[in-house]
């Protein structure tokens, strides 16, 4: 059987996506991914289809710059062989399909709830009685943390099984942030509401998610972005990356009790987010990206302003880096802490920053570029040790890389072209968009019905893949190193829970 091959941001009639029986679907998709590091699953989800469930699997091929689509109709009352038994990278996707539609798998090793969605198939399962893994031993103890954490962060429950100070196992239970976003997309809504929803998926990746939504919508409407829209989006995405990476360097310093680094990186984030406010009126870029619009054109004045902000930012940032990365007390906390091995990373299918720090070169900016990423020819920074140090280094290096891109991008602004109005979405289409947010790849998929209305909207934040990497990274570490491991990933709860 063959898949339908599409490019990033392309939309195709749903009827063209090849459907097949489950056996062929299983062989095709697991065969595509198995032992092929250039391919991974970017989305795998189901939609209800008159008593049956229609599954769509989207496998990205980074070398060929294409995405393989295939589909399969399954019966929720039957049991199926799970992809996960063969390849762990499908683990979360199958759990989600099981939770939403009650599809049973005969050999899934870890068929537990994902987020306790309000419309889950089995309402008897509630978030208060999650089936935690436990080990019966007098030598071991359990530590439960959350859902409400000590800091000002989002809720989630962490259950550690420890031998003394050493972590043997960590299980992460999420779902507290579940707001039913995907279902809100299906209510008859105005475009401004849909765009606002995209901005509120997760507040630290506003540009990433709103760009993914805008691209999906524009693809459905057959809209071509203008050069000035492309510029606004890429500048905003890279600024978001700089702001969050800098903030996370501050948080990493806080967690090793290095006060100077914490304060300096913390205050360095401010000029970047304040620039976003000067540009679009919101420090976290809400209101900036809209489908078919360049709401706040990036003017020469803004370019000059940004360039002077970066001129002041860069030496201060570099000075602090030099100090932090030569400080033995800091390095001894970072190095060899929270390791995700290259083999584990590849096997569980991590994406984005977490992949690149474990030797897996996975970056949508270079593998499935859109807009101006085609021109800047991004080359991903890859680290190989998979420890906290790699993740801290990667953040530092990506900030410097992004500053370089920004300087090139704003050196010559495109001539402003007027937008041609946005039409309404075509009917019976499937659209997919991949965006490399600061955390990793964001994937939005949309399916339209006979009148061009949305009949399914699927959001995948990179955290969906990467939470498992955090759980694996802390094994055999001291429990006191959990905060620094956690911060080095800084995964999203709201992006996962939706």
């Amino acid at each position, binding site marked *: 059987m063959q898949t339908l091959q599409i490019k990033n941001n392309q939309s195709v009639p749903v009827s063209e996506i090849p459907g097949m029986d489950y056996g062929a679907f299983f062989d095709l998709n697991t065969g595509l991914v198995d032992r092929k590091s250039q391919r991974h699953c970017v989305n795998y989800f189901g939609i209800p289809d008159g008593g049956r469930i229609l599954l769509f699997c989207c496998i990205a091929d980074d070398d060929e710059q294409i995405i393989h689509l295939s589909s399969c109709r399954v019966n929720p009352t039957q049991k199926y062989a799970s992809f996960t038994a063969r390849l762990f990278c499908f683990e979360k996707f199958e759990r989600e399909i099981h939770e939403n539609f009650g599809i049973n798998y005969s050999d899934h090793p870890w068929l537990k709830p994902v987020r306790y969605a309000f419309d889950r198939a089995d309402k008897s399962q509630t978030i208060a009685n999650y089936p935690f893994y436990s080990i019966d031993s007098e030598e071991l103890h359990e530590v439960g943390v959350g859902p409400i954490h000590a800091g000002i962060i989002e809720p989630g429950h962490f259950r550690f099984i420890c031998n003394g100070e050493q972590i043997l196992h960590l299980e992460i239970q999420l779902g507290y*942030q579940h707001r039913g976003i995907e*279902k809100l997309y299906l209510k008859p809504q105005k475009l401004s509401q849909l765009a606002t929803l995209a901005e*509120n998926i997760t507040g630290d990746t506003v540009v990433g998610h709103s760009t993914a939504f805008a691209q999906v919508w524009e693809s459905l409407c057959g809209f071509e972005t203008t050069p000035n829209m492309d510029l606004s989006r890429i500048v905003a995405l890279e600024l978001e990356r700089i702001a969050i990476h800098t903030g996370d360097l501050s948080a990493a310093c806080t967690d090793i009790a290095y006060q100077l680094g914490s304060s300096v990186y913390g205050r360095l984030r401010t000029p970047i987010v304040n620039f976003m406010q000067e540009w679009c*009126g919101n420090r976290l870029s809400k209101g900036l990206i809209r489908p078919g619009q360049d709401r706040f054109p990036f003017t020469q004045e803004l370019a000059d302003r940004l360039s002077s902000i970066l001129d002041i930012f860069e030496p201060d940032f570099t000075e602090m880096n030099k100090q932090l990365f030569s400080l033995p007390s800091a390095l001894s906390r970072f190095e060899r802490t929270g390791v995700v091995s290259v083999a584990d990373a590849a096997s569980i299918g991590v994406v984005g920053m977490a992949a690149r720090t474990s030797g897996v070169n996975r970056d949508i900016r270079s593998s499935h570029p859109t807009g101006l990423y085609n021109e800047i020819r991004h080359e991903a920074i890859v680290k190989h040790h998979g420890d906290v140090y790699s993740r801290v280094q990667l953040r530092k290096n990506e900030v410097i890389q992004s500053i370089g891109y920004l300087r090139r991008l704003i050196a010559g602004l495109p001539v402003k072209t007027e937008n041609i109005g946005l039409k309404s979405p075509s009917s019976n289409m499937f659209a997919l968009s991949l965006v490399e947010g600061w955390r990793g790849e964001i994937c939005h998929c949309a399916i339209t019905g006979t009148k061009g209305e949305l009949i399914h909207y699927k959001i995948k934040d990179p955290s969906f893949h990467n939470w498992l990497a955090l759980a694996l990274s802390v094994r055999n570490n001291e429990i006191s190193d959990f905060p620094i491991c956690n911060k080095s990933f800084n995964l999203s709860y709201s992006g996962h829970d939706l």
Partner: protein
Amino acid sequence: MFNNIKIWFHQGKQFIPDVRNVKVPGIFRGRPIISLETVDEKALVDCCPTNAISTSPVAIDLGKCTFCGECAFRFPEKVVFTTDYKISTNERSRLIIKEGIDEPIVLNKNIIPKDFKSMFGRSLKLRQVSAGGDNSCEWELNAANNVQFDMSRFGIEFVASPRHADGIVITGPITVNMAEPLQICYDATPDPKMVVLCGTDAISGGIFEGSPALDRSFLDRHTVDLYIPGNPAHPLTVINALLALTGRE
């Protein structure tokens, strides 16, 4: 050590000396002013993603507004967002800005509990609960404590346990899955305590209003002492709101 001192010196002065009157940079969207111009009111109401605009008289409910600025884009002659960031109050109705009115938003002093100033006027410890928030208000609450905004100079700090807290700050629209943890956290906070809603999502549900995944019954059972609008709320909005509530405008 010398390097540390050098870096410290290079930071210059970072803190904002006067957080009550400092001007925010750029085109911040704070308190709106609605003129008395006649516009197509149906189109004006329709353009809002969160149904924050009502008519006769034309008014914007800052408890529902996501500050996206769509109305000001479409009807610049009717709606203008000023950079006034002091937009918090303790009475829900005061968040509704009516046309033709350009007055600062203030707290209703008569309904602030009498002991707030004496109890919390010099030290206020808060427990934050993210109940379905998108992490944007959380970023800004963290920023309120960075070296620039430095909220702790006023003795206002976030603490790790509700048992150490004088009140809770809720962000997010309150999901079904967080309803119980939120209630437990509230119960664990000793009296007297305050309830602060931070961000549009918390005040009205925002863009998530009406989602079946929400359970906002907590707010029916408890009195809210402070509403801090914004999407997310700006650190200066947060600081000024807490200062006003504890009698320190």
